[in-house]
């Protein structure tokens, strides 16, 4: 990030978008952020237990909404319609990948993760494979995912911010209007996040879901109705419009191969099942049954947006072709304009500023909600998994929260720098994070949960392989765009067969084979670990605050005997909690106090 000459290359000003300061929409956004901060303040948190899992007091529908808000990022709200408009049939990979993955998550992981009962993805990996190194790799992966994913969100926020707040290019020397907006929006997001932990964020996320789904769906209805495209069900009525949009909109495999289509969907699906900020939602519910049903609700809430996005893309494409210039052909719609097609569609329909502002504000809400989830997962990886578990085991509450907040600021700064001159479209940037989650974390969750003999050596070998393989196409295709002298991709062959956005199709089977082979060649995990895995699959209901480890520790004489020794390791606090819990649930308050002191 050295010379300003690199920064100035960005030409991300969407043509046709009305870029100027607008009072109504600006007030909407400010009011919305104010509302978030107020809720964040009311539900502010002081201790880490609350911060990470919001006290496990969240029910089906609310958790479903939080899943929805966490999920529906700028990539869903803006990027998906953009890809559908520009890439046609290939753009639908996002619609498929980002919804159907939830079924796999549901049948293979949701309830089991709740039973395992750990706070974060790295916690799972570290405790399941009894390895601080594995925990550290998972934590670094979580941090990386948060970073890569958030780049796309920052791009989305900034593009929409241009419509609402106008062009302040040059206000910060060397930065154009888009880049100034990136900096401004990220400062707001980080400021908001450092003030509120997850309890606030979860309450917020239900509110944010409602705001953004209303903004999107009402926007779609009004655009469809005023232009005569649709009446009551635009999600199905846009079908009649498709034949008028030009063959590029729906022709299969016009802009991409069948292989790329399958590889991308595969990657997005397994990524869905490995994303830490999604998985953390399953620790926040009171029982495994709630975990299951809130997944169903979450998927339903997500589908409302995903059924609507292609319709928005179709309307936007038609409006753009009619009022600006042909969408396809030369020059066609620029990628910057396509990224805001949702806002453009409302603007080109001649709707009043305040109404377009609602649609735009929804885009910002989508981005902030997701960045909230991502940065919390990323910062907890640093403060909880690396700092407290590995660097400073005696860390106090205050130290942990401080480290957590510092890592949020660091994530914010990194994301801002990378988003100043982004390498790809919003949806694709987010897709790279999915490849990473699918390559490194999903295989660990899947094998760790469904094969008790998966062991530490296997996990370490598997995760290292996954990280390495994921970075190959990233270095091939993405890194060169940040280095002026290099042309992306470095190797076309690699880009064709192992595309960055679909790399998990290759990496996942390799990681599975490596993990299984190494696990079989080395010693089996301890009986206690196996019993914890078994407890995750037992149909026996578990208490609200109970983890599989607690049950295993309380069950059978042999474990009680070894309990004394267990309390010495990094699970000391949790070990105590297990015993306390099993002994008497009523003494929870006392128990909590102990836990907090020791954490």
């Amino acid at each position: 990030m050295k010379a300003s000459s690199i920064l100035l290359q960005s030409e991300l000003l969407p043509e046709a978008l009305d870029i100027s300061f607008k009072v109504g929409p600006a007030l909407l956004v400010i009011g919305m952020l104010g509302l978030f901060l107020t809720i964040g303040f009311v539900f502010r948190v002081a201790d880490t237990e609350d911060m990470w899992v919001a006290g496990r007091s969240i029910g089906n529908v609310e958790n479903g909404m939080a899943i929805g808000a966490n999920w529906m990022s700028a990539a869903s709200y803006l990027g998906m319609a953009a890809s559908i408009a520009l890439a046609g049939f290939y753009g639908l990979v996002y619609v498929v990948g980002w919804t159907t993955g939830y079924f796999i998550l549901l049948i293979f992981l949701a309830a089991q993760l709740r039973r395992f009962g750990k706070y974060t993805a790295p916690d799972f990996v570290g405790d399941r494979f009894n390895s601080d190194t594995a925990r550290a790799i998972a934590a670094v992966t979580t941090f990386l995912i948060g970073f890569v994913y958030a780049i796309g969100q920052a791009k989305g926020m900034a593009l929409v911010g241009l419509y609402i707040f106008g062009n302040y290019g040059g206000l910060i020397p060397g930065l154009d209007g888009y880049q100034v907006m990136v900096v401004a929006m990220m400062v707001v997001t980080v400021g908001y996040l450092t003030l509120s932990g997850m309890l606030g964020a979860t309450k917020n996320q239900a509110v944010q879901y409602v705001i953004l789904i209303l903004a999107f769906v009402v926007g779609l209805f009004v655009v469809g109705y005023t232009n005569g495209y649709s009446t009551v069900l635009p999600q199905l009525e846009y079908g009649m419009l498709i034949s008028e949009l030009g063959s590029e909109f729906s022709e299969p495999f016009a802009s991409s191969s069948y292989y790329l289509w399958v590889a991308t969907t595969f990657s997005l699906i397994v990524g869905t099942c490995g994303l830490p900020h999604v998985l953390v939602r399953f620790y926040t519910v009171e029982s495994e049954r709630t975990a299951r049903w809130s997944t169903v609700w979450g998927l339903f809430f997500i589908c409302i947006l995903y059924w609507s996005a292609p319709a928005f893309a179709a309307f936007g494409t038609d409006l753009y072709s009619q009022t600006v210039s042909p969408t396809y052909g030369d020059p066609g719609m620029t990628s910057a304009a396509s990224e805001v097609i949702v806002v453009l569609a409302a603007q080109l329909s001649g709707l009043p500023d305040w109404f377009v502002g609602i649609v735009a504000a929804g885009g910002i809400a989508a981005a902030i909600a997701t960045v909230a989830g991502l940065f919390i997962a990323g910062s907890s990886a640093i403060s909880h998994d690396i700092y407290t578990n590995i660097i400073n085991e005696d860390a106090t509450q205050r130290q942990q929260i401080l480290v957590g907040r510092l890592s949020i600021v660091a994530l914010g700064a990194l994301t801002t720098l990378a988003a100043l001159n982004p390498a790809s479209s919003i949806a694709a940037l987010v897709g790279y994070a999915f490849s990473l989650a699918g390559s490194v974390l999903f295989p660990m969750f899947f094998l760790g949960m469904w094969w008790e003999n998966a062991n530490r050596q296997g996990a370490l070998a598997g995760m290292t392989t996954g990280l390495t393989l994921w970075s190959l196409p990233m270095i091939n295709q993405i890194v060169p765009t940040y280095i002026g002298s290099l042309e992306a991709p470095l190797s076309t062959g690699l880009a064709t067969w192992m595309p960055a956005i679909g790399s998990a199709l290759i990496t996942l089977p390799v990681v599975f084979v490596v993990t299984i082979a190494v696990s079989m060649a080395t010693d089996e995990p301890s009986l206690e670990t196996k019993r914890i895995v078994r407890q995750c699959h037992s149909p026996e209901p578990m208490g609200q605050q109970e983890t599989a480890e607690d049950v295993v520790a309380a069950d059978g004489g042999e474990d009680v005997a070894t309990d004394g020794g267990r309390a010495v390791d990094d699970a000391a606090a949790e070990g105590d909690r297990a015993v306390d819990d099993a002994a008497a649930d009523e003494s929870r308050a006392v128990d909590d106090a102990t836990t907090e002191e020791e954490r």
Partner: protein
Amino acid sequence: MTDNSSRSSDDAATDGGVATGAAQKHSDTDYLGAEVNILNPSTPYMRDHLRIVWSGFAVWVLAVWGPVTLTRLAPGPMTNQMPILGFPLHYFLVAFGAPTSALILAFWYSRKRDALDEKYGIEHGTADVATDGGADE
């Protein structure tokens, strides 16, 4: 939840009269002693559960990659315009069919899981039932 170590004997006592075959098997099973391997389920419950999981998975694979593969193999018929809706068939199956299938499958699976719990005489906590009451369609 206070006393897991004596679980099996307790359950046997309470279930005694009403237990169905499955519930009896459930109370006889030592879940912490049964190996977990997705390819080789070791308890009756997991066998039943995995049967549901794999059936759902098979349908899911068809819903996700079936239409696109058919489109690759037979682009002509797959891109025909649908009556009434006006979509090209492949577009509809992918853009609307796949997400909707996943949602229906998810609902189906959760219902099946609840039924399975019932079959095995497993009751989730009362607090749980209360929150689900309104939520469960």
